Every structure is written in C-alpha cells, then in structure tokens.
C-alpha cells in the first residue's frame, strides 16, 4: 500500500470516529439536569393600623445565600396608594400609608410591588402580589351617663385610628323607661367641639341643661332603681389625612341608676 493510500484510509477512519463521537455527544445531553434553586419570596409579616396610618411589614422568606435587601416599593390596589419600602431589618421591610375612608370598609387589601436588593453582589428584584387582612374600625359608644343638678356628664369611649371631631348634638333625649316619661329633651342642636385623638380612650361631654334655652327639663336628678335611655344623635367629622368626612351617628344607652 502506498503512503498516499494509507493517508487517505487513515483520514477517513479518523473522520468517521470524530463524527460518531460528535453524534454521541448530543446523546449525552440527557445527562444535563436543570439546576433547582430555592427561590426567596416576599410575604406579609403583619399589617397594623395606628395613628401613624397603615403600616405593612413585609419579610423575605427562604432567603438562602447571600441576599441583601436595599428597598423597593409596594402599592395597595384598593386605594392606589404607593409607598417606598424601607428596610427595618436584614430581611424585613416596611411601608406606611396614610389612612383613607375606604379602609373602613375593607377586610383585606391587595399589595403588589417590587423588592430590590443584591444576590451575591449582583442586582436582584423580587416581585410580589400579596393579600393581607386589615381591620380599620371606628367605634364610638357611651360607656357611662351621670345626671344630677341638671348637669349631664356623658362618658364617651372610642377606638379610632383617625381623629374625630364631635361637632354638635341634636335632639338629645333622656327617657325614664320605668315611668314612661321624659327626664328632659332638647329641641335643636347643641353646638359642641370635642376633638378626639386617635387611639382607644374616653372623653367626657358635660352639658348643663339649665343653660340651654331649647331644653325641656322635667327633672334635675335621677331616681334610684329606674331604667333610663339616653338618645344621643351626634354629628361627627372623621379627619382623614386627605379628606374630612362628616356623618350622623345615633348613640344611645340604656342604664339603671343606683345599680
């Protein structure tokens, strides 16, 4: 066999081996597995309603590896409010929203947004959509009534996240249920300006019926053992950060004197 023929023969053999190996390499792709990674995600730690407003605390869960959180934003779908997220811990973020009247009607809110940070030194963003329960309630009730010497002391208890103004009392009436008779009634309004700060607290409204011209007073004191009912229609203004909302509220209390 001449060297040239040997050369041609060996070249063909080597080329065929290379082709078979290249084809075999593609078959080896079955040994490639997609890598799995525990992905960190954002969840609500809690939502609180206080005088400062609605505070949403978010926490990063499954934060394995070298993750740092730098900030981001979160918006509330129901109200359209958006706020920057501030870091309050290595994996905890917080956003504050001023209270709006809509919150009173809501039991859950949808929060969506983006948390930015770094993952092993490189930029990272975690988007999220969360549903969180909230409870914004304004409660006002009469917890005690005292009446003597024609002076009425009403202890009003309240629990509110927003300031409330009690503007006026209209047609206040105290009825002796035992005798089915009025103790007093007032026709018309008594202007008032009681400011209630946010929180859970009490305030006392004192009305001297002797000085009110439209009052019809039948008795200046209560009889022990009788059941009385106080009707207290009031006009209140809820002072939200962006808007003032005035509404009429009828408070009443049934009580027995002398226990």
């Amino acid at each position, binding site marked *: 066999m001449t*060297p*040239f023929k*040997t*050369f041609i023969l*060996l*070249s063909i053999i*080597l*080329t065929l*081996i*290379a082709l078979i*190996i*290249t084809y*075999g*390499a*593609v078959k*080896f*792709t079955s*040994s*490639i597995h997609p*890598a799995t*990674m525990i*992905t*960190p*995600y*954002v*969840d609500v730690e809690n939502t609180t309603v206080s005088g400062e407003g609605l505070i949403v605390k978010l926490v990063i*869960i499954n934060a394995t*590896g070298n993750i740092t959180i730098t900030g981001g934003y979160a918006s509330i779908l129901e109200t359209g409010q958006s706020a920057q997220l501030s870091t309050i811990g290595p994996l905890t973020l917080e956003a504050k929203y001023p209270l709006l009247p809509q919150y009173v009607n809501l039991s859950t809110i949808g929060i969506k947004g983006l948390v930015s940070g770094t*993952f*092993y*030194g*490189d*930029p*990272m*963003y*975690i*988007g*999220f*959509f*969360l549903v969180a329960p909230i409870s914004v309630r304004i409660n006002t009730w009469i917890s005690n009534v005292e009446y003597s010497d024609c002076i009425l002391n009403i202890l009003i208890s309240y629990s509110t996240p927003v300031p409330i103004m009690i503007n006026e009392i209209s047609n206040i009436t105290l009825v002796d249920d035992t005798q089915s008779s009025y103790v007093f009634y007032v026709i018309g309004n008594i202007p008032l300006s009681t400011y209630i700060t946010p929180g859970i607290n009490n305030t006392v409204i004192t009305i001297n019926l002797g000085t009110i011209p439209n009052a019809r007073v039948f008795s200046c004191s209560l009889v022990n053992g009788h059941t009385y009912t106080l009707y207290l229609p009031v006009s209140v203004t809820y002072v939200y950060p962006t808007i003032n909302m005035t509404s009429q509220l009828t408070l009443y209390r049934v009580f027995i004197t002398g226990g």
Partner: protein
Amino acid sequence: MRLEVIIQLIIALIFVISWFLAPLWCLRSNIYTQELTPLGFSITFLGHKYFLILPNSIAALIYVITSALIPIAWRNSRYSLYLSLFTLSLAIMLIITVFIFQSRYLFYGGYSVLSTETGYMYIRIPYTTYFGIPLYILVFLIIVTSVNAVTRARWITVRRMTIIEETLLMVRSEGPINAIRKALDRIGIQYSIINNALIIGDMAITASNTGRPEGVKEYLSFTDKGFIYFDGSSITELSTEQGIILAISKALIKGKPGKPLAGEYA
C-alpha cells in the same frame, strides 16, 4: 528522528498537561461558572459542583496526542506529516463542536426570571468569558504542525553532523579505532575485531601499538603523530583526519554496506 517532530510532540504534551491544569475556556459570574476541561465541563452553581463528561472533549485530547505521535511512528513518508496535520485539525473541529454544544445546551444568558410562591424573582448576573493558556498553546501547536507538514519537518536550518564529522569529533574522546568502529556500525559495514584491529576483508585498521595482523594485504595504522597507509607495496603518510576519511572510504569499498539509509519524511 527529526528535531522538528520532537518539538511538535513536546508542544503537544505541554498542551495536554496544561489543559489538565487550566481550563481551555471559562465562563465566570458571581454564582455560576463553567470551565472546559479535557474531560468535559466543570460547572459550579451556588457552591454546588457538577461535572458534565463530554466525549468531544475527551476525543479532542486523544486526537491531539495521536496527531503528535503519528510522525514518530510513521517516518518514511511525508504523508505521515500530512496525516498529523489532518488529525490535529479534526481535534480542533471537535473542540469547536464542544463550543456549539455549550451554546446550545449550556447557554447562560446572565439573567434569570424565576417564579416564586408570591410572585417572581429576577436576577441579573453579569458574566465574563475568557480563553485559557491551553488554547494559546494549541494555536502554537497548529503553527508548528503546519510548518512541519509544509517543510517536511525541515525548518530548523542547523543541520545534523555528518557521519564523518561525528567520527572526527569522536577520535579525540574515544580514539580512532573506536570512532571508526561506531561509524561502520551506523553505515552498516560488517567487520571483525582481532587484537584490537578492525578487519574488513583483506584490510586491517590498527592503532600503532598493536601488531600488524596476519593475512591482510592492506593495512591502515594510526600512530601517535599521524597515520600510515600500506597498500601492499608502498607506504603513504597522512594526517589523522585524512586517515579517518580514507579508512571509512576504504571500508565502504572493501566491506559490504547494508541497506542504504532511508530519508525521513521523503
């Protein structure tokens, strides 16, 4: 064996060793690396190591070694050098298929969008790729192999010494008789040694201190000062150098030279 072919083999071996020490190609980012080793891809992801064995890569390594060994094993034709270059180009093809494989099955874009329980996660991880030292050695190997194929492994201009030159050099260290004996071995002339004299047919090559062997017509004797040639009737005095040349040429006539030396990669 020609020096050029040995240089080719040495560079091939350096390439093979260096590839085991350093990756030929490398992709690096903060959380993910890919390294092309002779046995396949070494992949690290978030501290987890994974090794993907690649037949192409292993075959490329074997082809490079084969390419350098072909001219060593097959010396009598220039086609061995051509086959060596062809095999090396196949090795490069195989390395290119490794890169095609990487871009198809191990593609890494530098960012990821992952779904999470409450949304998604987007990470952007810039990466850099670079070629390692073995690639540059491989480029050098391609150049040397190509030059070998084109010049038939005759690009080093420093030629080897001829047999005469080597013999003349050896006279100083080993004496004239031993030097001639080794030259005769290489040329392939049969001789016999009697009393430290080389006998070739009816001719004897002796040193001066040994006696003149019997039954020879001609004898060549190296003395302390020079060289004496006795052709049966007359004596000629020559220098040692002339004596060596005469002794070898006479031996070629008197002796029976073996097969003529084949030229390498002719």
